């Protein structure tokens, strides 16, 4: 238990919780805004227009090939230099995670939409439904069921990847942990593992419910 006392120092847990809040805020904002972006991108990817398809392909490949860290630096330093747009570190993180989440989710949406058999939309057509009604009432609800488990996993990845924000100087939970460790290095030299243990537990508490939701949904809709 050597070093565990660091956690009982005044202000340590509240500061870690404040850091966790920053992490959750960046992740939640990114995930929530990624949803409409992903739906739009996914729909655009299913269009037959070759120009739109190529543009979407470039967007997806660019986001996938570039390391997230490089994207973060591009957004943080590049936007200020090229467009005179001074994004703060948190804003740059949110923007990158939205672009990343939107692209990844878009690809999931595309896959889910294309996995719905054509005959389902034919069935809606012969019943007289318009293309829009068919999309909204028949195709999209089925596609959402198929893509929800995978998109919950994507949300979990976004939560974990927010830890990169520390490299832009965002004081999120990892950064707070580092500050606490640094401040107590001589008093509690063995406190490092305890602090990171608590951080691990905090990430687990945020991500675990998402995993459970994904697993439950997968089970529930397995028969559809």
């Amino acid at each position, binding site marked *: 238990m050597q070093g565990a006392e660091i956690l009982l120092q005044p202000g340590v847990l509240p500061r870690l919780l404040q850091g966790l809040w920053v992490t959750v805020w960046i992740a939640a904002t990114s995930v929530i805004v990624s949803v409409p972006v992903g739906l739009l991108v996914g729909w655009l990817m299913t269009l037959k227009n070759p120009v739109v398809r190529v543009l979407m392909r470039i967007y997806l490949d660019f986001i996938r090939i570039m390391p997230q860290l490089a994207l973060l630096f591009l957004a943080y330093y590049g936007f200020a230099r090229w467009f005179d747009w001074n994004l703060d570190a948190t804003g740059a993180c949110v923007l990158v995670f939205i672009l990343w989440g939107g692209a990844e989710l878009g690809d999931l949406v595309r896959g889910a939409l294309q996995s719905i058999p054509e*005959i*389902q939309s*034919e*069935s*809606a*057509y*012969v*019943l*007289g*439904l*318009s293309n829009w*009604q068919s999309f909204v*009432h*028949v195709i999209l*609800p*089925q596609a959402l*069921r198929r893509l929800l488990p995978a998109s919950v996993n994507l949300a979990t990845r976004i939560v974990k990847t927010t830890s990169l924000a520390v490299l832009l100087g965002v004081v999120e939970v990892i950064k707070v942990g580092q500050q606490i460790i640094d401040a107590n290095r001589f008093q509690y030299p063995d406190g490092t593992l305890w602090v990171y243990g608590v951080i691990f537990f905090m990430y687990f508490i945020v991500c675990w419910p998402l995993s459970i939701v994904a697993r439950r949904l997968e089970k529930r809709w397995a*028969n*559809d």
Partner: protein
Amino acid sequence: MTETTDIAVATAANGAASANSAALSVRNLTKQYANAGRRVLDDVSFDVPKGRVLVVVGPSGSGKSTLLRTIAGLEPIQGGEIALEGKVIETGKPGTEKAGRSARSSELRTHIGMVFQSYELFPNKTVLGNIMMAPLLVQKRDKAEVEREALELLGKVGLADRKDSWPHELSGGQRQRIAICRALILHPEVLLLDEITAALDPEMVREVLDVVIGLARAGQTMIIVTHEMRFARAVADEIILLEDGHIVEHSNDPERFFTEPETDRARRFLRTFEFERAPHDQQ
């Protein structure tokens, strides 16, 4: 057979009242797929009078299902025309092989119902949701009235207790009966049935065919594509043998078609089903 009688009462007004006039006319219909060497349907013509049942039989790949799909507007046609109650709803245009579905209006589409081999219920809707969707969204009918009619139809096909079930909870035969109810609630002038028992276990075939026989007796105009010759014989007012996209034989006397077909091709075709007829005839 109570179910069939009930269905008969339900749809009587729709059919027999106006026999003789053509509900659907197909004239010189030609259909070709992109990059395909031959025509899938070539100069096909026939009328389906109101209240009559036309059964289309033929070997696999003869164009039977494609014929129904063109009538439903799912496939563009390259020649000829299709008329519903005297009004032309589709005219063939050369060079449209790659075109999508017909641009006919939503309202017009509700006049021609279609039931698929694989049911194609919407898995995100309950039984009642499936049946009520089109009348509410397309025909903008009153919800209470639609629900009442949906429950009536479900009762008639023996599935009133499954109204809140999800499609995956039902057997194939039950799903197919729901698909028939979903088409019927729109009161289509013509109902197209595309091999509706092909995906069913033998014991489920009967329950679906009873419903269709009931509809036929009630005077619902139908075009039925089937491989079930006993069923075809029981339900047909007219029968067409299709092969390689051509009508080989068109008979207004199905009984005669099955016993003394006019063409050698029909004789050979029917001979392949003799094993199927034998045990039935012994019953």
